[in-house]
């Protein structure tokens, strides 16, 4: 939560949180606020969710705005939709806060065009681990349902990265559904931008009383998550600190680059690590064994991970799709989240926090980071 909003509209809950959000979407489609809605929908095989751009109201019946798993990052879907420009259709994208944060980072990187997109988010209870869900979808749906209905959102079944997420509420979106701490069967719909306010006006939804109850609950939960985050980072630290530990942690890496292809921030059409330049010929590989006495395959796994850290950690939103994508269960997201937290602090930047903050690598100040250059004094005391 970056800015504390001061007003929201009260909406009464019908058919649970999901039903209420769907009802709002149906209304807005009917009134012509949007031409389409990008929303997760359960796949026909029932064991996963996919992003679907819905144009006809009846299809919304099968959609699930609060999906228990994330198979593809929402920002990736938005990139596919808008990489060639915003188009003429107004589209509402209902996504988790981490999807929205990634979309904002990508809009700064000119991969997403948010002009015609209305970003709608909600207080996110976290998502389940993909492997568990696929094993037993029905049971998982039940677990997630009871989690969502519960008074205190218990995160013991959610992904590890969701357990340490303190950005689960009110990202820089146009509209936000405040689900936490609401009483008497009603939730709040909070506009974050003028675009959002206009939609509420179009739909004729009245603003109502204060949001203190929601605010209190959110701050309480943020505190809990921050504590869990600090604890988690303490656990991650010894697994990556030191060259030997780093090698151990990534020892199982099979070099499939799934983490990179699932990552919403890794948008480069041609990644260095997939290019021909990074594939040496046999003579060169043999040369590299001369001092070592041998070399393991796949080549350059540590280089891939450290390289990716230095390339994208400033924009990492800690969404956790990299861990989901890893076939050998390396906790990639925990490690990247740990590194990203520290690198973003260097420039007092928080990925996806606002559309206004420029990317750290796009700007500079004249008088910063003077300490990174070791000073060499001349005889006359000049640097």
């Amino acid at each position, binding site marked *: 939560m970056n800015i504390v909003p001061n007003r929201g509209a009260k909406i009464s809950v019908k058919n649970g949180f999901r039903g209420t959000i769907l009802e709002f979407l149906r209304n807005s489609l009917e009134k012509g606020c949007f031409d389409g809605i990008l929303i997760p929908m359960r796949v026909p095989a029932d064991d996963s969710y996919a992003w679907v751009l819905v144009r006809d109201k009846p299809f919304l019946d099968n959609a699930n705005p609060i999906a228990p798993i994330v198979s593809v990052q929402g920002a990736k879907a938005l990139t596919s939709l808008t990489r060639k420009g915003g188009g003429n259709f107004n589209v509402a994208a209902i996504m988790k806060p981490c999807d929205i944060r990634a979309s904002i980072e990508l809009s700064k990187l000119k991969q997403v065009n948010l002009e015609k997109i209305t970003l709608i988010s909600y207080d996110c209870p976290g998502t389940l681990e993909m492997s568990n869900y696929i094993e037993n979808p029905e049971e998982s749906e039940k677990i997630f349902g009871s989690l969502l209905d519960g008074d205190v959102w218990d995160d013991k079944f959610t992904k590890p990265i969701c357990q340490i997420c303190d950005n689960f509420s009110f990202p820089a979106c146009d509209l936000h559904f405040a689900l936490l701490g609401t009483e008497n069967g009603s939730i709040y719909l909070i506009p974050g931008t003028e675009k959002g306010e206009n939609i509420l006006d179009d739909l004729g939804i009245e603003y109502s009383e204060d949001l203190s109850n929601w605010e209190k609950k959110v701050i309480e939960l943020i505190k809990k998550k921050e504590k869990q985050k600090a604890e988690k980072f303490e656990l991650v630290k010894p697994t990556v600190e030191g*060259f030997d530990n780093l090698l151990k942690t990534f020892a199982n890496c099979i070099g499939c680059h799934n983490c990179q292809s699932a990552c919403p921030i890794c948008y480069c059409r041609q990644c260095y690590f997939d290019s021909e330049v990074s594939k040496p010929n046999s003579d060169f590989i043999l040369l590299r064994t001369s001092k070592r006495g041998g070399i393991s395959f796949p080549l350059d796994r540590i280089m891939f991970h*450290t390289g990716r850290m*230095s390339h994208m950690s400033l924009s990492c939103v800690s969404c956790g799709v990299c861990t989901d994508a890893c076939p050998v269960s390396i906790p990639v997201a925990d490690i990247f989240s740990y590194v990203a937290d520290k690198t973003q602090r260097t420039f007092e930047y928080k990925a996806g926090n606002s559309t206004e903050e420029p990317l750290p690598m796009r700007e500079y100040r004249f008088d910063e980071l003077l300490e990174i250059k070791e000073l060499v004094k001349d005889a006359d005391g000049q640097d």
Partner: protein
Amino acid sequence: MEREFLPKIVSFLCKWCSYTGADLAGINRLQYPTSILPIKVMCSSRVDPVFVIKAYLRGADGVLIGGCHPGDCHYQDGNYHTRRRVAILKRVFELLGLEEGRIRLSWISASEGPKFARVCNEFTEVIKSLGENTTKTTIFL
């Protein structure tokens, strides 16, 4: 008899300042160790962090990045971006417990031949005190 350890320092030198500075050091017949392996780049901001990581993990004992002084970049602001990039790279190295002391950024202008020689001497001494890079003998990379 064991030979004295002479480090290998991969040096990315910008064409307009540091590389010309190195030339000047040569013309002036200034002494600096043969540990420096110069690579000419058009601007210090051309140095992708991956270049440095690659050099480090393939066994370079040190990596030197030389650019124009702040404000003097041939491309107006390239070196300010270099500074931010190196800062992040050093932060990542620090977090992973790798030896960030093996990476060095120096501003050397085209007229600073003596400074180039001094940076090379100093950095070589620093690397000598750090010893050989252990990645040189690591098989499971």
